């Protein structure tokens, strides 16, 4: 479903990872590991199409990737429901998905509360609920469990498991054990050799 072939990515003009290849099939999850700064976020952003690769190819069906970054993109002045409805509409999905997402992420008691009045963990749950309303097959998640308590992590694991069972796939950069049956890919061997400077002109990207 998602295939990377000899991918190299750069951060700030310096190549951080090179030679990354893997294949992610439907129904599977892949956990990315690696020390801080190794380039997990950079790789995920490249997969999400937010930045160009230095080398290699990333193949995925069109309109199949939903990306969740460190930041949730939640608007503090909008309520839980308004936030989710916005994203559902952006992805062209019905508001019934919003109700399902609210149920799945245990936000029932918070639906009409402005996000500004929610705790960090509650906001995170809302941010992850956004994935459900995108109805996309491949989830690309960057540290999804930050600021979640143990119960919420378990809740999120269930959501991911249900997504995989439904034929989806997930690529997750995380340091904790989510309790999901998944392969693990350690990025350390792909660390780029020092002093490899990327070509700053990325004509293809334009």
């Amino acid at each position, binding site marked *: 479903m998602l295939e990377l072939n000899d991918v190299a990515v750069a951060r700030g003009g310096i190549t951080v990872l090179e030679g990354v290849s893997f294949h992610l099939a439907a129904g599977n999850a892949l956990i990315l590991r690696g020390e801080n700064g190794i380039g997990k976020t950079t790789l995920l952003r490249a997969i999400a199409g937010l930045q160009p690769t230095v080398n290699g190819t990333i193949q995925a069906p069109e309109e199949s990737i939903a990306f969740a970054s460190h930041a949730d993109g939640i608007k503090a002045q909008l309520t839980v429901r308004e936030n989710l409805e*916005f994203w559902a509409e952006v992805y062209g999905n019905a508001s019934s998905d919003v109700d399902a997402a609210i149920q799945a992420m245990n936000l029932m008691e918070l639906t009409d509360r402005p996000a500004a009045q929610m705790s960090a963990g509650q906001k995170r749950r809302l941010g992850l609920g956004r994935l459900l309303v995108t109805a996309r097959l491949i989830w690309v998640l960057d540290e999804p469990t930050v600021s979640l308590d143990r119960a919420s992590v378990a809740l999120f694991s269930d959501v991911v498991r249900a997504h995989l069972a439904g034929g989806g796939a997930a690529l997750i950069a995380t340091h904790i054990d989510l309790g999901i049956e998944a392969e693990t890919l350690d990025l350390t061997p792909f660390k780029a050799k020092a002093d490899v400077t990327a070509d700053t002109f990325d004509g293809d990207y334009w």
Partner: protein
Amino acid sequence: MKALLLRDLRLAIRAGGGFGLGLAFFLILATLIPFGVGPQPDVLASIAPGVLWVGALLSCLLSLERIFALDFEDGALDLMASSPLPLEGIVAVKSLAHWLTTGLPLVVAAPLLGLMLNLPSQSYGWLLMSLLIGTPALSVIGAFGAAITVGLKRGGLLISLLVLPLYVPTLIFGADVVRRAGQGLDASVPAFMLAGLTLGAVAIMPFASAAALRAGLKGS
């Protein structure tokens, strides 16, 4: 697209959204000018077109930074850029939302302030019309400045420096429409030029802004 427009309008109106900031600034500016210049009706009448247009332009500047900076900070811009919405469309819709919350209130308030500045009576229609067709250009050009500075902290001043030179043609023709109307001359030529500037800006700027945003998001 509609969802994004409604969201931006809703955010502008809710607490802390900055709606009315530009309008308040416009009111203050146009109220202070007569105090500064003194109570000479004919002097006020001759500077009124320029004051109203410069006021509209500066009020517009105030809220430009918010167009993209807020969405950039909380990650929403990244998520929108990776969503099915084309970046050019996002820019266009956000510019439209900026115009509806900043430009349009200025258009509505301007005749009232014209009264305070002793604007000749035959100018009011042209004042309304020139602001109506000129202010959209201010929003789309401003969105371009906001897009270029999106990754920068405190980019507000830089936006002003980047955007003000691009505002000059709109200012010249906009104020000229009102001035000519006040002198009883035919104002249609500068009005057409103004309309042309706006149409050109609306057609080109979203693409330029989207390119700037792509470069900005890539670097972060």
